[in-house]
């Protein structure tokens, strides 16, 4: 293999590997965002869920999800695996397909991690693991296969009716909105935490630890640059526009949240994430100043969406994952169709109609899938802890140990 090709192969491998590791790191962020938000009696459980979901998602996505979405499987000896590019044998491929699957696994694993934050503090452990496996192994990859994967039919149809395919560069819709809209039925079917509403009065439950919450938010924001930039999935395709659009969307989310939430640390640190969720879809298309507003509006959606959801609709979504990932993710899909237009300084080539179709179908698909899965689980194994277990806390009930043993064991 000639020197240049060798460099290219190595570069692609490094590029995907760095992206995969950065997104893997984001899962520590999911864990701490939840650890900081739940009560101390549920912190161990928060971490246990995230790390277990990661493990399960990896297995099911490699074995089922990726083969389903891209038609490539790994039932070959290691020698052949390293020399695979898009399923074809290539000398010196540096395990490209393996890395590609690793990279996409980190996306799939976000689905259970997102849901985890909504159902926190009261869900049974194993049923939720099972649900996560179904989502990461089937529900998500099926939709992925239609948008990014091997089944072009859907995109062809969208292009026919709307003039352009549905554009989702880094998963505002495919990943985040799917995760968020899957979480909505989960949270509703699970029901409110004990004590969240007392005789018709809203009794919001104080969160435990804002430094941990903000640590989670920082870790997520940092890893996010891998999430978006490495979504090029090919070294040649890297572009600073994606990086800087991510930056501006995040900053827009932060600043809008600081102003409109009157400096509320929960909204500010989640505002940064709202901005990043909203920009994924159009990060390769829009102008940085457009990204600023996409992110800022994303933060507003979270702020007002969260209040609406938890106070008006009385949905006890602990981390607010439906407004954060669901609604804001959908906004990201639509926003790409608006700010991506040349008229607004974008690169163009995107259709608002296509964005609407793709965005809505993701939400519908997720709502259906989650409703079925959780209804079945509830009817069979049950998805909620006994009330006394919930009151003792998921840590003692599920893991038999609290988060700060030295403090309470004596």
């Amino acid at each position, binding site marked *: 293999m000639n020197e240049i090709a060798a460099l290219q192969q190595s570069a692609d491998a490094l590029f995907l590997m760095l992206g995969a590791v950065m997104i893997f790191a984001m899962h520590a962020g999911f864990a701490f965002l939840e650890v900081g938000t739940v009560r101390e009696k549920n912190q161990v459980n928060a971490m246990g869920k995230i790390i277990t979901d990661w493990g399960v998602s990896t297995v099911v996505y490699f074995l089922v999800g990726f083969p389903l979405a891209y038609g490539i499987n790994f039932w070959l000896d290691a020698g052949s695996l390293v020399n695979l590019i898009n399923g074809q044998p290539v000398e010196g491929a540096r395990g490209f397909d393996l890395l590609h699957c690793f990279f996409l696994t980190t996306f799939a694993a976000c689905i259970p991690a997102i849901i985890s934050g909504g159902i926190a503090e009261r869900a049974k452990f194993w049923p939720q693991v099972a649900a996560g496996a179904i989502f990461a192994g089937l529900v998500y990859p099926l939709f992925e296969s239609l948008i990014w994967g091997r089944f072009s039919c859907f995109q062809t149809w969208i292009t026919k009716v709307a003039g352009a395919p549905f554009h989702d560069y880094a998963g505002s819709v495919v990943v985040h909105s799917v995760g968020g809209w899957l979480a909505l039925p989960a949270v509703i079917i699970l029901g409110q935490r004990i004590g969240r509403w007392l005789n018709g009065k809203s009794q919001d439950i104080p969160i435990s630890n804002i430094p941990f919450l903000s640590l989670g938010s920082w870790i997520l924001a940092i890893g996010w640059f891998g999430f978006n930039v490495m979504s090029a999935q090919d070294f040649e395709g890297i572009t600073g526009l994606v990086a800087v659009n991510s930056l501006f969307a995040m900053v827009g989310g932060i600043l809008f949240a600081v102003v409109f939430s009157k400096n509320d640390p929960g909204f500010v640190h989640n505002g940064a994430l709202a901005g990043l969720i909203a920009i994924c879809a159009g990060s390769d298309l829009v102008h940085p100043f457009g990204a600023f507003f996409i992110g800022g509006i994303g933060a507003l959606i979270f702020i007002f969406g969260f209040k609406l959801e938890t106070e008006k609709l009385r949905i006890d979504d602990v981390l607010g994952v439906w407004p954060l990932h669901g609604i804001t993710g959908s906004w990201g899909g639509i926003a790409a169709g608006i700010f991506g237009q040349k008229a607004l300084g974008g690169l163009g080539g995107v259709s608002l109609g296509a964005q609407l179709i793709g965005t809505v179908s993701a939400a519908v698909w997720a709502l259906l899938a989650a409703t079925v899965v959780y209804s079945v689980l509830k009817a069979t194994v049950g998805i909620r802890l006994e009330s006394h277990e919930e*009151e003792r806390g998921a840590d*003692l009930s599920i893991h*038999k*140990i*609290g988060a700060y*043993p030295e403090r*309470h*064991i*004596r």
Partner: protein
Amino acid sequence: MKYIIAVIQPSRLEAVKEALSEIEVFRLTITDAQGLGRQRGHTEIYRGHEYKVNLVQKVKLEIAVSDEYVEPTIEAISNAARSGEEGRIGDGKIFILPMDEVVRIRTRERGEDAI
């Protein structure tokens, strides 16, 4: 005047506070405590090792009252502090101690008016 010390379940604090304010006892001092009694503790497990936790979290209330308030206060607490209809082991105790004098720091008032 009496100094009433009550040890109750943390989960009952809200209810007890309300019950007390209904009989116009608005002032008390609260401390976190751990109790040893009939109520059994629990076991925790970490890295395969068992830990017996025999102390139970409790909340301690201290209320200084004038004599006519003693019975109503006891009533209020023992009603509100019970978990469920006929109560559960661990619901706690009320201790009534004699008190000679009270002083309100701000005003230097003493006795009944200071309570």
